[in-house]
């Protein structure tokens, strides 16, 4: 409860603040379009392999929501050369761990394992890009699993249902308004042919970035990746339509009443810009949101939890790692039941006050310092650098942007932060929601 949820943010390493490269990542592009990134770190004999595909639920046709995520599950079903469970079985026999995730803009698969097995792991990941052997039975059984997943994550969790509804209003046109896992009735209608069609069209080397981090040398990585990927040809490029959303003209308060709910929760989601649109402005917005609503020393927490004692908790964060728009999320837990309008009014008043009076140079400097320290912590491990680089590149940032991040961070001043906060709080692109009994 006290620990507000941890949300992935871009953190970057700069040990001395002059313009050093952050990760010293090495990059190579193969003829078939596959991009390889290597972050060498021989500290322990372990490697993290992550393959990032630059698509997620964003490329699903209308009526086929959940297909990208469905495909992610099916990628574990084996190929002709490595049938059924071979991949996972091999990985656990060497003591490795693995998982995968699907988002709006990307799909990623990753493993960590002892570095002496790197060749086999590269071969296995390459193999499933093109050689899956799926049966109709695989697909039908896995569909049941996915429906159980949807029931676990959404249908039996009123809070997730509220989020789903709020997003569908906030993004009425863009795929960000559709759930990644898919609508229940559309998952039910997905077929073997849908899946195979999707797999053949999109799983292609020119849609992928392979990141290796840890005890691995760039030269060796390049050699091995070439060996196992060079015969994979790219598919014909599909045109992906970039959708965006109209400005909202109405103000929307949604409410979910549920008999199991014992504690009211209030939420608000704003549309916001993304790092893809402007890195500097997004960093400024991120810093501003941290000062305003991040953690238990934020302006909002201090006002409403410490001083006014209206909420037991209030917080918020900015998520801007997206190909299209990003978003800002606020939540509050009132001590006594309150109307949505009343909570909104209090919050708006306080945001205005924060911009006009409370956000100081001192607070900004402190937050920049924390940003800098967090980047050092981010290097204490091998998966984190792979996550940061993979996510940033798949949403459209350049490696140079990432390596030079700190130059941009240093230039952020108070006026930029205020301007960004004002911009999102002055427009009407937000939805408010409340969960109550």
């Amino acid at each position, binding site marked *: 409860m*006290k620990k507000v949820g941890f949300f992935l943010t871009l953190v970057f390493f700069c040990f001395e603040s002059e313009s050093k490269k952050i990760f010293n990542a090495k990059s190579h592009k193969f003829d078939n379009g596959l991009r390889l990134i290597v972050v060498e770190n021989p500290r322990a004999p372990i490697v993290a392999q992550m393959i990032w595909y630059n698509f997620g639920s964003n490329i699903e046709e209308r009526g086929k929501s959940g297909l990208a995520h469905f495909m992610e599950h099916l990628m574990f079903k084996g190929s002709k050369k490595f049938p059924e469970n071979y991949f996972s079985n091999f990985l656990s026999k060497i*003591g490795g761990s693995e998982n995968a995730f699907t988002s709006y803009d990307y799909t990623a698969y990753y493993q960590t394992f002892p570095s002496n097995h790197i060749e086999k792991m590269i071969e296995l990941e390459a193999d499933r890009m093109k050689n899956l052997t799926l049966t109709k039975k695989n697909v039908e*059984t896995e569909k049941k699993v996915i429906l159980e997943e949807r029931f*676990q994550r959404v249908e039996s969790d009123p809070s997730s249902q509220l989020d789903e509804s709020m997003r569908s209003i906030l993004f009425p046109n863009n795929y960000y308004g559709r759930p990644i896992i898919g609508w229940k009735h559309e998952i039910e209608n997905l077929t073997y042919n849908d899946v195979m069609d999707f797999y053949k069209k999109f799983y292609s080397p020119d849609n992928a970035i392979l990141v290796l981090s*840890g005890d691995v040398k760039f030269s060796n990585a390049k050699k091995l990746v070439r060996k196992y990927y060079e015969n994979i040809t790219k598919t014909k490029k599909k045109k992906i339509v970039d959708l965006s959303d109209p400005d909202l003209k109405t103000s929307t308060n949604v409410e979910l009443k549920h008999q199991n709910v*014992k504690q009211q929760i209030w939420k608000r989601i704003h549309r916001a810009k993304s790092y893809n649109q402007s890195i500097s402005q997004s960093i400024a917005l991120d810093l501003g949101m941290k000062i305003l609503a991040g953690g*238990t020393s934020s302006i909002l927490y201090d006002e409403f939890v410490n001083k006014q004692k209206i909420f*037991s908790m209030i917080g918020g964060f900015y998520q801007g790692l997206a190909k299209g728009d990003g978003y800002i999320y606020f939540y509050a837990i009132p001590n006594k039941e309150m109307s949505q309008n009343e909570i909104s009014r209090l919050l708006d008043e306080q945001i205005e006050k924060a911009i006009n009076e409370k956000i100081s140079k001192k607070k900004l400097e402190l937050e920049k310092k924390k940003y800098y320290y967090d980047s050092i912590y981010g290097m204490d491990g091998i998966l984190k650098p792979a996550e940061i680089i993979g996510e940033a590149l798949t949403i459209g940032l350049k490696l140079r942007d990432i390596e030079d991040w700190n130059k941009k961070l240093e230039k952020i001043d108070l006026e930029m932060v205020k301007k960004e906060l004002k911009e999102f709080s002055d427009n009407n692109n937000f939805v408010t929601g409340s969960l109550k009994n």
Partner: protein
Amino acid sequence: MKLLFFILIFYFQSINALEYKKLQTSKGIKFWFVQDKSIPIVSVSFSFGGGSSLDSKEKNGISNLMTSMMDEGTTNLTSNELKNLMKENGMKLNFSSQRDRINGNFQTISSQILKSFELFSEVLNHPKFDEKDINKIKRQIISSIKIDESDISTLASNKFNQFFFDQHNFSENTKGSIKSLNNINREDLIKFHKKVFQKQNLIIGVAGNVNEKNIKEFIDLVFGDLNNYDEILKIKKFETLAKGERIHKIKTPQTSVLFGHPGLARNNENFFALRIANYILGGGGFQSRLYKNIREKKGLVYSVYSYLLSFESDGVIVGGFQTRNKSVYETVESVKNEWKKIQKKGITKTELENAKAYYNGSFTRNFTSTLSIARLLQIVQYYKLGDNYFQEREKIINSLSLEKVNQVVSNLFDGKKLFFMIVGEPEEK
């Protein structure tokens, strides 16, 4: 980012052997230490035995309340001043209350090391426990208790503890209740803090970029002046674990089920045999029998698992899944069948070899960050696994024969001792 930081720092005798040092401070505190100069970070993992099992029935939740209060200021600093100083110095400190102990992690950036350890010392030794902050944190815990009630997986876990552990105090909700929280006042917290944070109960592991002389001084600065009590806090054995099944009705389209069964204490000589058996049964991710048969073959669940919950004095096996109301009993039956199967037929030679290979290979994954190394050092001491554990571990694993594991399995696993807590609206069998 210069490659300079990535100097190879581990010297392996065999690949799984972590070289650490046993150190003692001038105030008599013993701890394990790995110097790691590859990154400018110092991580400390520490624990105090006891935890929420020390909560009395009237003041249940006090351990969790106390740990939640630890970053709410000191006698010299308000809550906000403290939080800002922590940010200023890149210092991270958190406490969490477990059933059998209070765990803590401290991390700092090497350049801020002195200031950070001074703050750490002040937080640990002189918490403020201000009335206003106590009420604030109580309100937060109470709203989280209410939120838990509408989350079927957390509700199932609370109900499971309540009924499975029966007469044992593990049956209590570690967060307490609205009533028990109201019974706790400032004096109680001060007393509890003194009682729990004492030298006898303390275990410490450290990894990071600091030298031996300095880290000894820092450890003394933080922990050196704690009290010494004679009373050693021990957890009772589980003598009255429930069997059979119990249903808690709540309106939901999916039912959450947790199951439990007797297990073994962490330092029991057969622990590793059981760990291997559990890996095969439900612990091994995509490889386990529960996963393969219930998820992969039948598609009844998104997730199904089992794990060992092992303490110093005793242990249990716990597992769980969520499934649609109509398939609850089919899934319960499948779990029971797996239990029967492993009890009667044991595990196969291939399964044993795969599990051994997993445990031999996976250990080095603990060595990738200073915090995971510090935690490992702490845990090995906490469970008294021995000074040579990092060398011995591989031998313990490799010496396990199929007969031995299957003997442990057939002695321990017993379908009649399974308990199922069913929370939701299961359709009749």
